[in-house]
């Protein structure tokens, strides 16, 4: 018997070739993908978009005018006082910084771990990061008593002796952490878009548009050399961005962890805050994606599988957060410090702000546990509601940490209450206005899904199918051969 040994029928069936998970549904042609993704940019915006845009723009305008009033009058228009020096301002700051994290996590860490499912969501997630960090940066800038001197937080040579910043102050660390974070995220986001920008350039019919995109796509030519360099750079940047996912919110958490206040003075804050950040970030990504996929009919690319994957991340990080809450209470009880015990057991559980603590537990501890059930992970409405709750819960978590720790500290004589004014609330709403306005504009003028990456995925599918069919033909030839041998 001669010839190569060819796997027998039985052997062949024992080793089936599994298809990779389908992250794009109803396998569209490459042309279709481009069309689908770029449709919103080339057509006129729909009614839904205009309504959302009007709302968020209005919120933004209100926020800006209130900030103007704030500058003219002073921090006093907020509800803060001698007992509670920080309230909505820093709550919002931490909240927004947290939101940002999901973007970096998806684009950087999932890239390093070669999670294919990130491809169709990372672009918008990164965009979200940028806008969230913009909102976050707003608050430290306006919360200072003399905002026109806020630049003193940066070290620069001066005539004062010279007088530097206090490198021991976590606020200075924040300044560095957040500004680095913003820069890296921006570069990473932009770099990731270049191939698509080139695609737009090539499709553009209108001269000005062509001009602009030629300029922003930095003369991308899609050659093999360009691509290979491109891969390397994005890997490098991913490597750079990865530590930021952990570092930024750890630094933010040290604003509190390094303080002496019961409720702030805690060593578990860094991991606790990072987990919380990713949790809230994914909550926000989910909210946004559910909206966009339904308004921009991109169901093909942002599939249920994506949402399900994210809900699993929420379940994980949500559980970590819940564990952190427990740890806080345990250590408060275990260390026996009367001030700690008061802060957690008497004040958070039974104090005047106990309802905030309640909301926080409801949204951050109970909500994610729903995701154990497949039916909930599979229902869009349920996921949408859940993601909103996650956002609310995480805002309240920061409020609880900041205000509930501040309003009743060591000396009972200085205990007080914080009552928000319309300006507290208005500027919070304004920041949401800023966030959504930016996002809505983004999905109009830039491809909100990484076309080239999605194409890559579809490419893989094609390769797989071809391989399978080749094997089929091979097997068929072999069967013919054996029959001939039998005849002879």
């Amino acid at each position: 018997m001669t010839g190569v040994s060819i796997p027998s029928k039985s052997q062949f069936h024992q080793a089936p070739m599994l298809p990779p998970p389908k992250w794009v549904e109803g396998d569209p042609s490459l042309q279709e993908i481009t069309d689908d993704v770029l449709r919103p940019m080339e057509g006129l915006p729909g009614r839904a978009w205009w309504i959302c845009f009007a709302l968020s723009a209005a919120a933004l305008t209100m926020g800006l005018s209130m900030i103007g009033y704030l500058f003219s009058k002073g921090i006093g228009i907020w509800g803060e006082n001698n007992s509670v020096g920080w309230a909505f301002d820093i709550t919002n700051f931490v909240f927004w910084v947290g939101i940002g994290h999901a973007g970096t996590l998806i684009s950087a860490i999932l890239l390093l771990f070669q999670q294919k499912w990130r491809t169709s969501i990372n672009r918008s997630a990164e965009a979200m990061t940028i806008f969230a960090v913009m909102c976050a940066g707003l608050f430290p800038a306006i919360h200072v008593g003399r905002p026109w001197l806020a630049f003193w937080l940066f070290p620069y040579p001066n005539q004062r002796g010279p007088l530097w910043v206090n490198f021991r102050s976590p606020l200075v660390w924040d300044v560095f952490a957040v500004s680095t974070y913003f820069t890296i995220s921006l570069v990473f986001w932009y770099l990731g878009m270049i191939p698509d920008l080139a695609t737009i350039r090539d499709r553009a019919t209108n001269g000005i548009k062509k001009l602009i995109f030629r300029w922003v796509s930095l003369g991308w030519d899609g050659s093999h050399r360009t691509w290979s360099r491109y891969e390397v750079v994005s890997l490098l940047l991913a490597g750079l961005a990865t530590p930021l996912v952990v570092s930024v919110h750890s630094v933010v958490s040290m604003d509190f962890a390094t303080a002496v206040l019961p409720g702030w003075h805690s060593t578990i804050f860094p991991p606790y805050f990072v987990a919380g950040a990713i949790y809230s970030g994914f909550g926000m990504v989910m909210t946004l994606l559910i909206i966009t996929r339904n308004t921009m009919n991109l169901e093909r690319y942002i599939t249920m599988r994506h949402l399900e994957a994210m809900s699993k991340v929420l379940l994980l990080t949500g559980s970590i957060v819940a564990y952190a809450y427990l740890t806080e209470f345990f250590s408060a009880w275990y260390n026996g410090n009367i001030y700690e015990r008061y802060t957690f057991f008497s004040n958070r559980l039974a104090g005047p702000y106990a309802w905030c603590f309640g909301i926080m537990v409801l949204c951050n501890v109970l909500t994610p546990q729903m995701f154990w059930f497949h039916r909930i992970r599979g229902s869009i409405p349920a996921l949408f509601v859940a993601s909103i709750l996650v956002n609310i819960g995480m805002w309240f978590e920061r409020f609880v940490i900041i205000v509930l720790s501040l309003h009743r500290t060591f000396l009972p004589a200085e205990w007080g209450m914080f009552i928000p004014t319309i300006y507290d609330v208005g500027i919070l709403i304004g920041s949401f206005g800023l966030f959504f306005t930016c996002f809505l504009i983004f999905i109009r003028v830039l491809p909100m899904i990484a076309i080239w990456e999605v194409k890559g995925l579809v490419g893989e599918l094609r390769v797989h199918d071809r391989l399978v069919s080749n094997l089929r033909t091979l097997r068929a030839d072999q069967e013919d051969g054996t029959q001939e041998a039998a005849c002879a």
Partner: protein
Amino acid sequence: MGVNQGYSPDQPIAFSHKIHAGDNQVPCLYCHYAARKSRHAGIPSASVCMNCHSMLEKQTADIEKLKESVAQHRPIVWIKVHNLPDFVSFNHSQHVLSKVPCQRCHGAIEAMDRVKEVSPLTMGWCLDCHRQHAGVATSNLKRAVESLSERPKPVPGLDCGKCHY
């Protein structure tokens, strides 16, 4: 920012420190007597000028103005040359009593016909002088290095609260 080095405004009376402090050797503290006791050097009132000028027969238009102001009991409105930001408390008497020559900050005043601000009067400029006198390096790098090895020396007037309160 706020540095007026070289500021030299016209004064209502062209008073020359060169003639008084320079040529005629009038001691600074004769007119600015407050500098010994007060935060302020103090600008002498016209009556102080008259202590001499009532005896000197030399007459000029400016001296007329002076006599007029005394006669009418109306003060002369001078233009302030050395302006510190008013969140700084500088105390002349401390420096005068510590034997700091006026010229150290005001320059060769006895050679000026019209007073000119020669020093930047910035905080850094103050501190450099204080550091020199305390024998501490004025260069930041050097100080940083020293601070690693030995306990920093106290420098008189280096505490923020010495001037800012």
